[in-house]
């Protein structure tokens, strides 16, 4: 069925758009940008800021372009003297309710409000400052909530409730005193928050930001008694470039290796390596259950720390289905402070392990429980997000674009295409299938591209034929999509019916880690698609496409771990889970 097209006139320019297009989007076709502050492509318009008001011929009241659909024959005015003046006053009002702290704000230079103030040429403050009085909430390991900076656009609330189904953030109070906070005005850490950081990625200003730990990294690098090493996640390589005006999805892996060495790291590892290792462990775990104990299925992936937190809070009955394999970050750190230390004659206490992640929850994961100190001390010392590494790079005076391409340390740095696709939704599943096929059949898949698990659809299902044996899998991303999958499994379990899937992959953030809460700002589905494409390109050009073909993975088992799910592997690479009920305080 083709879309019905309608014609509208915008500032006298006739455009044709599909029925159901908002005035905001229709205007783009007429090459007109209507200013917005609360609107975000990922979310339904809340229509709160009031900046996108436009006039429609024949209508008395001005309407919001974000929340009003264009209708056939409409004549719309988006810019004139009156609208300009009203918008400017509204903007000045918002500025009067926002601290004048741009220079020391984490969003300085990346703030949507600052940009609008710049574009509108606001030169003086005619209205007396009227600021909210609310203490900063830094209770979690991952996020800082500074309500004084909040412009009450409502993006975070919608993200937390509708996109992520977490319900940690809500509007509380009303009128001028309206605030975003967990219900009951709790601290974020006492709320259902899973630290996914999607709120911070969607916040237009500096009201919710990642906990900035760049200085901790510098301290470690400058400490001569420390041997600083670093790893970075699959999804970082396709988004980091955005901080330096590269296209989304452009792979800058080798430049990052050089960058990290230049910053002073003694060894540069790649989390893609341990992603391969994760597949070896998790794949073996799955195959064992599938062949020997099918009643214990489905197996659910566990490399996403927000998802782990969410499951521990909301689905304790599913803990037994959770893969005990740690996330790639934690596997690599554990090996760095054991295997790498041993090989290089280092005391694990002297190793300073930094991890660069697309994710704010990874900051939480490193001290989640004692399993995260498998080496005897905390395995990962500091996690910084992609955004933090961009800032760090700039402050270090590195001209990123000019850097030569480098290499990771071979020991914990080589990876297969299967490792790299961990960064996108469906990637863990695809990588697992590639290796599980081999483990079951002792043969490699002829075509390793598992297309049905790819893409941005919220829940993806596939049936994989492993030489006549059918493996049913499901992939969900964006926590609101997970509920559908989990509830189906729960119901089947309760009713003693056949489980709908054998293997389930979950990533908390829409699009997977490439759309993580710690990635460069401004993510939309267009950007998610580009980053995803970058990841699959990296996979395609890899020599080895399957984790079990990664020679360094094989070497680690030979030299250190023995075999997947060995006793040693269990000690270092596996974890356990516990019920964490919410609203106990």
């Amino acid at each position, binding site marked *: 069925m083709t879309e019905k097209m309608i014609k509208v006139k915008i500032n006298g320019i006739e455009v044709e758009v599909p029925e159901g297009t908002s005035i905001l989007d229709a205007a783009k076709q007429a090459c007109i940008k209507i200013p917005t502050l609360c609107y975000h492509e990922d979310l339904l*318009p*809340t*229509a*709160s*800021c*009031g*900046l996108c*008001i436009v006039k429609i011929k024949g209508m008395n*009241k*001005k*309407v*919001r372009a974000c*929340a*009003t*659909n264009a209708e056939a024959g409409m004549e719309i005015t988006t810019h004139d003297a*009156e609208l300009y*003046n*009203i*918008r400017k*006053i*509204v903007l000045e*009002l*918002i500025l*009067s*309710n926002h601290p004048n702290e741009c220079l020391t704000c984490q969003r300085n230079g990346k703030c949507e409000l600052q940009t609008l103030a710049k574009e509108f040429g606001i030169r003086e403050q*005619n*209205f*007396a400052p*009227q600021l909210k009085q609310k203490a900063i909430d830094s209770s979690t390991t991952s996020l800082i909530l500074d309500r004084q900076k909040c*412009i*009450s656009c*409502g993006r975070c609330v919608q993200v937390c409730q509708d996109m992520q189904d977490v319900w940690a953030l*809500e*509007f509380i*109070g*009303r*009128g*001028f*005193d*309206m605030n975003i906070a967990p219900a009951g005005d709790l601290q974020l850490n006492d709320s259902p928050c899973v630290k996914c950081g999607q709120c911070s990625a969607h916040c237009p200003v500096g009201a919710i930001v990642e906990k900035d730990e760049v200085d901790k990294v510098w301290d470690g690098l400058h400490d001569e008694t420390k041997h600083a090493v670093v790893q970075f996640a699959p999804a970082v390589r396709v988004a980091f470039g955005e901080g330096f005006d590269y296209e989304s999805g452009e792979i800058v892996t080798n430049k990052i290796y050089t960058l990290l060495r230049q910053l002073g790291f003694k060894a540069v590892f790649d989390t893609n390596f341990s992603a391969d290792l994760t597949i070896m462990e998790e794949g073996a775990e799955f195959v064992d259950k599938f062949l020997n104990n099918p009643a214990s299925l489905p197996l659910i992936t566990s490399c996403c720390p927000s998802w782990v937190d969410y499951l521990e809070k909301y689905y304790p009955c599913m803990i037994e289905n959770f893969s005990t394999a740690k996330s790639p970050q934690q596997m690599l750190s554990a090996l760095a402070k054991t295997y790498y230390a041993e090989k290089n004659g280092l005391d694990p206490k002297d190793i300073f392990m930094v991890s660069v992640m697309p994710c704010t929850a990874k900051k939480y994961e490193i001290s989640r429980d004692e399993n995260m100190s498998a080496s005897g001390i905390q395995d990962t010392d500091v996690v910084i997000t992609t955004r933090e590494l961009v800032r760090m790079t700039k402050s270090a005076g590195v001209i990123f674009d000019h850097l030569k391409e480098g290499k990771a340390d071979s020991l914990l740095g080589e990876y297969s295409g299967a490792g790299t696709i961990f960064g996108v939704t469906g990637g863990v599943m695809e990588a697992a299938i590639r290796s599980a096929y081999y483990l079951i059949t002792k043969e490699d898949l002829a075509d390793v591209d598992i297309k049905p698990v790819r893409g941005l659809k919220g829940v993806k299902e596939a049936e994989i034929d492993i030489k006549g044996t059918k493996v049913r899998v499901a992939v969900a991303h964006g926590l609101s999509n997970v509920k559908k999958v989990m509830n189906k499994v729960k119901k089947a379990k309760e009713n003693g019916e056949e489980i709908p899937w054998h293997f389930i992959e979950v990533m908390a953030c829409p699009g997977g880690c490439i759309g993580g809460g710690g990635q460069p700002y401004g993510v939309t589905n267009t950007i998610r698609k580009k980053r995803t494409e970058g990841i699959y390109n990296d996979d395609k050009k890899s020599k080895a496409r399957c984790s079990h073909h990664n020679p360094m993975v094989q070497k680690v088992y030979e030299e250190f771990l023995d075999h997947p799910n060995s006793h040693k592997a269990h000690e270092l690479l596996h974890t356990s889970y516990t019920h964490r009920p919410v609203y106990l305080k």
Partner: protein
Amino acid sequence: MAYNTFVLICGGTACESSKSDEMYKLLQKEIFDNNLKNEVQIVKTGCFGFCEQGPIIKILPSETFYVKVTPADIKEIVQEHLIKGRPVHRLEYKPSEDQGRVKIEDIEFYQKQFRIVLRNCGIIDPENINEYIAREGYVALEKAIFEMSPEDIINELKISGLRGRGGAGFPTWLKWNLTKQENADQKYVVCNADEGDPGAYMDRSTLEGDPHSVLEAMTICGKTIGANKGFIYIRAEYPLAITRLEIAINQAKELGLLGDNILGSEFSFDIEIRLGAGAFVCGEETALLRSIEGSRGMPTPRPPFPSVKGLWDKPTCINNVETWANIPVILTKGAEWFNKIGTDNSKGTKVFALTGKINNSGLIEVPMGTTLREIIYDIGGGIKDDKKFKAAQSGGPSGGVIPEQYLDTPIDYNNLVAIGSMMGSGGLIVMDEDDCIVDIVKFYLQFTVDESCGKCAPCRIGGKQLLSILEDISCGRGTEQSIKNLKDISIAMNNASLCGLGQTASNPVMSTLKYFEKEYREHIEQKKCSSGKCKSLMTFTIVADKCIGCTACARKCPVNAIIGTVKQVHIIDQSKCIKCGACVTACKFDAVIKG
């Protein structure tokens, strides 16, 4: 068994708070004790409207109108009036001390009124469905089910010219028709009873006095638009109205006038009550619908209008109490009859809650087109203490002031908008020469700032800024920029706020700047408040020539701000003075002046 005498006692909230319920029980006891229970019927009615004179007892058939009755008067009423047939003259209404009592039909308060919405208030017992039925109640519903098609009903409403009484005056027939035209598996009918304007109680009184009129109208709407479910959203602070609605719903269900197969027909309709927590913004229709759904009461953008996507995204027809109460009458008496009442663009009547500096405050219903002068001077009995009229505020915190030059403007939707105010839901507050415009506007802004939901920036921040500028002006900190800022912010709020609350919150500012800018400027330029309401701008000084040094003022001063000993001229220490005015009252020589 037939009664020969009827005692109607007001059971509205205002009279109940003045012990009318206690009097009702006393009356029952007295009637029983005196063995009159077969002859005298006591009816607890809804509001009579003349609240200034409450509690009110009316006795029929003698048409005696007792006012300001207290429990101590009950025995006398029963003994003298009911037993001996001698009315208690001292309790009868007298327009003024020197005038004698007047017949009910001659009471000026009622003379220019025309009651459609309040037709049963003060007449029937709202807790007895039979009394409603006896006054043509549910006749309209019967017609709607058995005689009229949905198109007929909508056409009737169209001819009647009825417009929504909740604020903006949207044609009721159009709203019904838009909802009717939608194809949906489920539709809803909603009654907006979230009345919240300061000083307004039209809807509360209607529901307390005549709940069936609303139930009947909603059921008719359900039949017309194809809905089988209705909700009444009412604030929890209206317990009496809620109780009477509950009783009414149960009684209507018992008689088959509500519920399954109404009057034996195929049509079923049910009504549920939903209580609001008292947020003013929940009177805005989209916020109200969100609140019924269980979400935070915050407005959502329109379009889509509720007629297309309302409660739980289903087509929803939402009207306010007063609009509903008009509908049964229109169907029974005919649209032509209704259409003859009022002005060209505004048909029927309007209920106002008349308060402020007025002699007869109360609930009134007048034909559209009545002038403010008639309301204030004829019905309202003029300004209290013969002070000078300054302005009247219509439309509550969303409305504007009407200054003296428009006293003779016929009140209807269009005229009010033309002079910078609006009909609103019907609050009408009268101000006299002692009221300060800046102070009044500050009051309204404080209200809208408190009641803003906080969702949209223009309303949330704009309102707060307006209030703070007004506070500056009233404290003598106003500048030329203050006026410009007031105007700029008002325009921005009006144009860019999401819902009616924000769009109209600046109306009091705009309309007073239009008619009383001089008074603002007096505060700013001369740092003076002529009415003396802005205390920061007021100073008390002692005129040396008149002060004899009696020390009376110094002794009365609560903060010891007056310096001086016996037989010396006293001086007020301005830094200590709290401007309470005690010295003015204390001085017998007019030596203390306020200015």
